[in-house]
C-alpha cells in the first residue's frame, strides 16, 4: 500500500515536471529556429548591402570621370540587371541636338509594351522639365531581346527616376516589368542612391571643369597675342579678342576656320599648316607675315593628350599670332644707325688716306700752298671723326642711363659769351651775324653742368650756322622763365620772327632757358617730330659743302636737358627761321 502511494505521489510530481520540460524543449526549439531564420535574414540583408556597395563603387569608378550624360545613363542601365529584376530598362536624355531614347529589353515584349513605356518616359520628362517634346525630334534606339508583336502583355510595374545635374533635369531612367506591383518606393532606394551618386559626381566635375575653363579663358582673353584653338574637327573652340582684332572680326560673330582662311588670303596657309601639325604632331613657326601694317610670327601647335603606352592623341590645334612689328622696327633703326655711322666714318678716313697717298707719292710740291690746304683738310676730317666718336660714346651712355651730369654753381652768362667768341670767326667767314641777349633776370650763378651745356650750345650754334644763308643772323639768348608769366621784355629778339612762346618751353617751375635762334631756311613741319630721336639727318638743302653731321647732336642735347630735369624743343617756319631751345629747372 505504501509503495503504491509513493509511486502515485511521484507521478503527481513528475507529470508537471515532465510537462514543463516538454514545454521548455519546444520553446527552445522554436526559439532557436526563429533565431536561425533571423540570422539568415540578416545575413541575406548584409550580403545584399555589400553587393549594393560593390555595385555603387564600381559604378562610381566608371561614372566618375565622364561628363557625358548619355554614357553615364548607359553605364547605370547596364549594371542594373544585377540589382533589380526588370523586363525592360531605358532612359531618355536631353542632348544639345535632340532628345534620345534608349531602351534595352531583357525579356521579349510586344510593341504595345514598348510604346507605352516610351510614352510614360516622355511624360515623366515633360513633367519634370515643364517642357513638351515633339515626338518627331526623337532619336530612338532599342536593343536586347526582340519585339514580338504577338505578346500582348502590358506594363505591370513601372518606375521613373530623374537624373539631375547641377539643379537641372537632364534625363529620366525607367524600369518596367510585366508583373504588377513589383516596384515599391522603399525597394527603389538603391536606384535613388545610384542616380544620386552619379548626379553628384557629374555636378562636381562640371563645376571643376567650369572653373578651370574660366581660368583658361580669362588668361587667353587677356593675352596680347592672338590665340585661336580648334578641336579635332577644326571647329573653333577658342578665339580671343586679340585675334579677332588682327583678323578684323566683330566681337560676337561665330567664327569658323574659313573666316580665317578668307582673311589671310594667300599670305599664310592656315588650314594646310593646321593639318600638317595635327598629322605629324610637331609644331610650326612661320617667318614674318605681313598683315596690314603689322608683322607677325605665326606659331601652329598641336594639342596632344598623352595616352597610355606612350602614344598621344591629337585633341586640337592652337594657332598663336605673335606681333613682332616692334622688334622689326628696332632692327631697322639699328641697321640704319650702323650704316649711317659706317658711312660717316669711312668718308673722312678715306679722305685722309688719299691725302697722305698724294703727299707720299710726291705729286705735290712739299712746301706749296696745296700741301697746307691738304693738311688742313686732313685735320678737319680727323676732327669731325673724333667728334662723331665722342657723340656715339655720349649717346651710348645716355641710352644705358649712365650719362653723368655734374651740377655745379656755374655762371651762364660766361658760358654764352664764351661760345659766341668761339664761333665768331667762323660766323664772320660765312657772313653771318652772331650775337647774344642775356636777360637781367638771370641770377649770378645756377646749378647745372657747364661742360654739358657748352656741348648743347655747340650743337645748336653749329646747326644754326649750317642752315642759315649768307647775310643771316643768329642769336643766343638766356633768361629765366616762369610758367605763367610772359617772356622777359629785355630780349633783343626783334629780328627773329621764330621764337618760342612760354607755352612752347613746356616748363612747370621757374627755369633757366637758353634759345638759339636763326633766320635760316627753317625745318619742314613733317620733319620736326623726328628731330630729337632718330639718327637720320633731316634732309635739308645744304648751303655749301659742310660735313653732313649725323643728327646725333640733337639726341644728345635732349639727353643732357632731361638729365637736368629740363626740356628741349624747337619752333620753326620754313623760309623764315628756327629756334632751338632747352630749359633747366632752377632748384
Amino acid at each position, binding site marked *: 500500500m505504501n509503495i503504491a502511494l509513493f509511486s502515485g505521489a511521484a507521478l503527481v510530481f513528475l507529470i508537471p515536471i515532465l510537462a514543463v520540460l516538454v514545454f521548455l524543449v519546444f520553446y527552445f526549439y522554436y526559439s532557436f529556429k526563429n533565431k536561425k531564420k533571423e540570422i539568415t535574414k540578416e545575413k541575406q540583408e548584409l550580403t545584399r548591402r555589400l553587393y549594393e556597395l560593390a555595385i555603387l563603387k564600381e559604378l562610381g569608378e566608371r561614372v566618375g570621370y565622364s561628363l557625358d550624360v548619355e554614357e553615364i545613363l548607359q553605364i547605370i542601365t547596364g549594371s542594373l540587371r544585377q540589382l533589380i529584376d526588370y523586363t525592360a530598362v531605358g532612359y531618355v536624355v536631353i542632348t544639345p541636338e535632340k532628345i534620345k531614347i534608349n531602351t534595352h529589353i531583357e525579356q521579349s515584349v510586344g510593341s504595345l509594351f514598348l510604346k507605352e513605356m516610351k510614352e510614360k518616359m516622355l511624360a515623366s520628362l515633360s513633367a519634370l522639365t515643364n517642357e513638351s517634346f515633339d515626338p518627331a525630334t526623337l532619336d530612338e534606339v532599342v536593343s536586347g531581346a526582340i519585339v514580338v508583336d504577338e505578346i500582348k502583355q502590358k506594363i505591370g510595374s513601372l518606375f521613373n527616376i530623374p537624373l539631375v545635374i547641377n539643379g537641372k533635369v537632364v534625363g529620366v531612367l525607367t524600369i518596367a516589368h510585366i508583373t504588377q506591383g513589383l516596384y515599391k518606393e522603399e525597394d527603389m532606394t538603391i536606384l535613388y542612391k545610384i542616380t544620386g551618386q552619379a548626379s553628384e559626381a557629374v555636378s562636381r566635375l562640371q563645376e571643376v571643369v567650369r572653373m578651370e575653363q574660366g581660368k583658361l579663358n580669362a588668361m587667353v582673353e587677356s593675352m596680347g597675342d592672338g590665340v585661336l584653338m580648334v578641336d579635332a574637327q577644326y571647329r573653333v573652340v577658342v578665339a580671343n579678342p586679340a585675334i579677332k582684332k588682327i583678323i578684323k572680326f566683330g566681337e560676337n560673330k561665330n567664327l569658323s576656320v574659313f573666316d580665317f582662311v578668307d582673311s589671310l588670303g594667300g599670305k599664310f596657309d592656315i588650314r594646310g599648316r593646321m593639318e600638317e601639325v595635327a598629322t605629324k604632331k610637331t609644331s610650326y613657326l612661320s617667318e614674318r607675315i605681313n598683315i596690314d601694317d603689322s608683322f607677325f610670327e605665326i606659331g601652329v601647335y598641336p594639342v596632344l593628350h598623352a595616352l597610355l603606352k606612350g602614344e598621344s592623341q591629337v585633341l586640337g590645334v592652337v594657332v598663336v599670332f605673335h606681333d613682332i612689328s616692334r622688334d622689326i622696327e628696332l632692327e631697322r633703326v639699328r641697321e640704319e644707325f650702323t650704316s649711317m655711322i*659706317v*658711312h660717316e666714318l*669711312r*668718308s*673722312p*678716313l*678715306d*679722305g685722309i*688716306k*688719299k*691725302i697722305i*697717298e*698724294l703727299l707720299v*707719292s710726291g*705729286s*705735290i710740291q712739299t712746301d706749296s700752298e*696745296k700741301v697746307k*690746304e*691738304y693738311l688742313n*683738310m686732313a685735320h678737319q*676730317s680727323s676732327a669731325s671723326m673724333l667728334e662723331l666718336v665722342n657723340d656715339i660714346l655720349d649717346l651710348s651712355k645716355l641710352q644705358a642711363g649712365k650719362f653723368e651730369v655734374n651740377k655745379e654753381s656755374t655762371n651762364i652768362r660766361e658760358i654764352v659769351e664764351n661760345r659766341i667768341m668761339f664761333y665768331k670767326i667762323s660766323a664772320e667767314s660765312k657772313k653771318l651775324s652772331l650775337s647774344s641777349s642775356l636777360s637781367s633776370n638771370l641770377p649770378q650763378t645756377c646749378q647745372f653742368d657747364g661742360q654739358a651745356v657748352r656741348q648743347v650750345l655747340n650743337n645748336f650754334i653749329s646747326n644754326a650756322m649750317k642752315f642759315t644763308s649768307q647775310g643771316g643772323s643768329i642769336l643766343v639768348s638766356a633768361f629765366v622763365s616762369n610758367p605763367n608769366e610772359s617772356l622777359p621784355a629785355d630780349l633783343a629778339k626783334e629780328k627773329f620772327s621764330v621764337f618760342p612762346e612760354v607755352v612752347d618751353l613746356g616748363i612747370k617751375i621757374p627755369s633757366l632757358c637758353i634759345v638759339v635762334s636763326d633766320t635760316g631756311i627753317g625745318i619742314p613741319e613733317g620733319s620736326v617730330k623726328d628731330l630729337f630721336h632718330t639718327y637720320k639727318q633731316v*634732309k*635739308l*638743302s*645744304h648751303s*655749301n*659743302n659742310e660735313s*653732313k653731321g649725323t643728327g646725333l647732336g640733337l639726341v644728345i642735347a635732349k639727353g643732357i636737358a632731361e638729365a637736368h630735369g629740363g626740356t628741349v624743343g624747337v619752333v620753326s617756319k620754313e623760309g623764315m627761321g628756327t629756334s632751338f631751345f632747352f630749359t633747366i629747372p632752377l632748384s
Partner: protein
Amino acid sequence: MKKILVIDDDQFFAKTLEAALPTDKYTLISAEDGEVGLEKLKSEKPDLVILDLMMPKLDGTAFLKKLQESTDLPKIPVLVSSNLSSVKKISDVMAMGAVGYVIKSDESLQSIVQDIDRVLGEEVKKQQ
C-alpha cells in the same frame, strides 16, 4: 684732253682726285649734288662722270635714273664711286646703266685713276 665731271658732296675727294689725275690727259669739273650735276652735264658735256651715291637734294641713284630715262641728256658713261658696299646696291646701280662701281675707301687714288683710264680707253674703242 678728256673732261671728267665729279659729282660728289665730299669736296676732299674731288680735290684729291684732281691732284692725282695727270694734268696732260684730264681736266676735272666738280658738282656738289645731283641737281648741279645734271646742269653741268648739259652745259659742260664731259667725257666721263664720276658719281657719288649719298648726296643731298638729288642723290646718285636718282641721278642715274634720270639719266637712264631721259632722251635729251647726253649719254655719257658713269662710273659710280661710293663708300656703300652692299652687293644689292652695286647690282642695282649696274642695272641702271653704270659702267663700273668703285668703292672709294677700298681703292687708292692710283687705282681709281687706272679705272678711269680703262673706262675711257674702252669708250674710245667703242667709238672706233
